[in-house]
């Protein structure tokens, strides 16, 4: 507890609570202000510590920090401290239940406090922990690359589900293209599950490309993955000129620009806005994907998209218009039971296979 030790001139590990009672409230406040902490949480911290003695056991610290987070109006206060504690102690949140009386070392306390201060600054829990699970893979996560959302797990499961028969048939290695890979989770999960699949992942953000490559190395799938730094423009994706894939998967930015300002501070302060901004109706990138995908896909190949609420209906309508080269649209639901994903297939017509003629489908 380096911070509090310096304020109260206490030895590390002593029971802060007992000493707090002997100090006047005004003295505490003056000392804390001298250290210039974030004003929002100081009061709640001080009040809480004045009223409750805080020890160094897991249960006491969980209770204490939960109250601090509640006082500072941090979202998911209980889950937050559970995850941060797990990170500091390098154990799972499940293990914490059985270790309630364990005492933290001075170093662990410092580590926990550092993480909690970050949380009080609205940093997403996932960034503070530095890694996160996505289906069966564990990946590093780093600002400003978008934190993988739980809904997206189902997209990865769908993608693997569709590629599995191709992989099992064994005629050739199925090829996957991901547009806007972010931390790489969708592609990496598929590569992890299906060892025969090879993939290309593109993202306009340098940070995202680096993170995807890092995660690929971490998972031992680098040899089957090429990462390109590229933006999907009206000209398509020149970097994959001439290449064909069995599947195109994407979780493109789909939040309407006007809605961005209403998002949580966690998102606005730390995550790449370009990974979220889908233009006026949220569908700017989606429209480009619908125009271009058939040119990237083999006949019968599939497009899988994650979308915002209300968008699948619009996208299915767009797909029914002639000229996209995509057919048989399906809508899939996410774990909350809401329509979230659209799947479509490239038409089987032989005529569109000319690799130099991708302009036909735009």
């Amino acid at each position, binding site marked *: 507890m380096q911070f509090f030790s310096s304020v109260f001139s206490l030895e590390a590990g002593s029971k802060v609570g007992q000493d707090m009672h002997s100090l006047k409230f005004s003295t505490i406040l003056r000392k804390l202000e001298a250290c210039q902490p974030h004003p929002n949480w100081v009061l709640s911290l001080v009040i809480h510590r004045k009223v409750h003695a805080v020890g160094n056991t897991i249960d006491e610290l969980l209770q204490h920090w939960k109250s601090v987070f509640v006082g500072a109006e941090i979202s998911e206060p209980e889950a937050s401290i559970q995850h941060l504690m797990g990170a500091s102690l390098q154990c799972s949140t499940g293990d914490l239940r059985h270790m309630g009386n364990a005492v933290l070392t001075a170093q662990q306390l410092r580590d926990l406090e550092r993480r909690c201060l970050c949380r009080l600054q609205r940093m997403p829990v996932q960034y503070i922990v530095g890694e996160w699970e996505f289906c069966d893979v564990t990946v590093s996560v780093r600002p400003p690359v978008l934190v993988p959302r739980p809904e997206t797990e189902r997209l990865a499961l769908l993608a693997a589900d569709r590629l599995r028969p191709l992989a099992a048939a064994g005629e050739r290695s199925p090829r996957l293209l991901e547009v806007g890979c972010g931390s790489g989770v969708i592609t990496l999960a598929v590569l992890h599950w299906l060892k025969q699949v090879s993939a290309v992942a593109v993202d306009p953000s340098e940070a995202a490309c680096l993170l995807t490559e890092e995660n690929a190395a971490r998972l031992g799938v680098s040899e089957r993955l090429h990462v390109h730094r590229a933006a999907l423009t009206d000209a398509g994706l020149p970097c994959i000129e001439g290449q064909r894939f069995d599947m195109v998967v994407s979780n493109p930015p789909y939040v309407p620009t006007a809605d961005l300002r209403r998002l949580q501070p966690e*998102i606005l302060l730390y995550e790449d806005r370009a990974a979220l901004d889908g233009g006026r109706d949220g569908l700017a990138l989606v429209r480009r994907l619908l125009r271009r995908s058939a040119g990237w896909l083999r006949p019968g190949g599939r497009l899988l998209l994650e979308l915002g609420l209300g968008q699948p209906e619009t996208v299915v309508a767009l797909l029914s218009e002639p000229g996209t080269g995509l057919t048989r649209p399906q809508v899939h639901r*996410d774990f909350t039971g809401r329509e979230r994903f659209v799947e479509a297939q490239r038409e089987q017509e032989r005529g569109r296979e000319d690799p130099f003629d991708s302009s036909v489908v735009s």
Partner: protein
Amino acid sequence: MLGGVLRTAAVLLRATPRCTAAARLAGTQGIDWSRFPQLDERELEERFVRGGGPGGQSVNKTANCVSLKHIPTGLVVKCHESRSLEVNRRQARHLLAERLDRALNGDASVAAQREREEQLRRQRGDLQRRRRRDRKDQWRRQRSAEASSEGAHSDRTGVDNT
């Protein structure tokens, strides 16, 4: 001499199917899975702790808690072991099936069978340890008997030589 006995025993132990990984697997294949409940998704009710609102890109929550209810029996399991929601959904189904197995099949459940197997294995281990200890004690007694008889013998020769 004991070294030789131990070496032979060790070789025998390695060779014995009982003690290899394959044997352990063979042991588990002895478990009867025929009564293990197969979950029907239509009989399950799943609940998640999720942030309100539109979800997806618009929300940053750690939402990984799954609560799974088996409607016919009312059994509920909760799982937030992993930080992945889908992993927790899978794990919740394992847990629920195991709980149902216990509740419906009691002693014939897979878990109970495993416990009995584990107990047997421990007993076998105890027996082997006891046997090894007995052999060691026997050898020690033999050695000390030999030593005392040798000592007596050298005393006599010493007396003879002087």
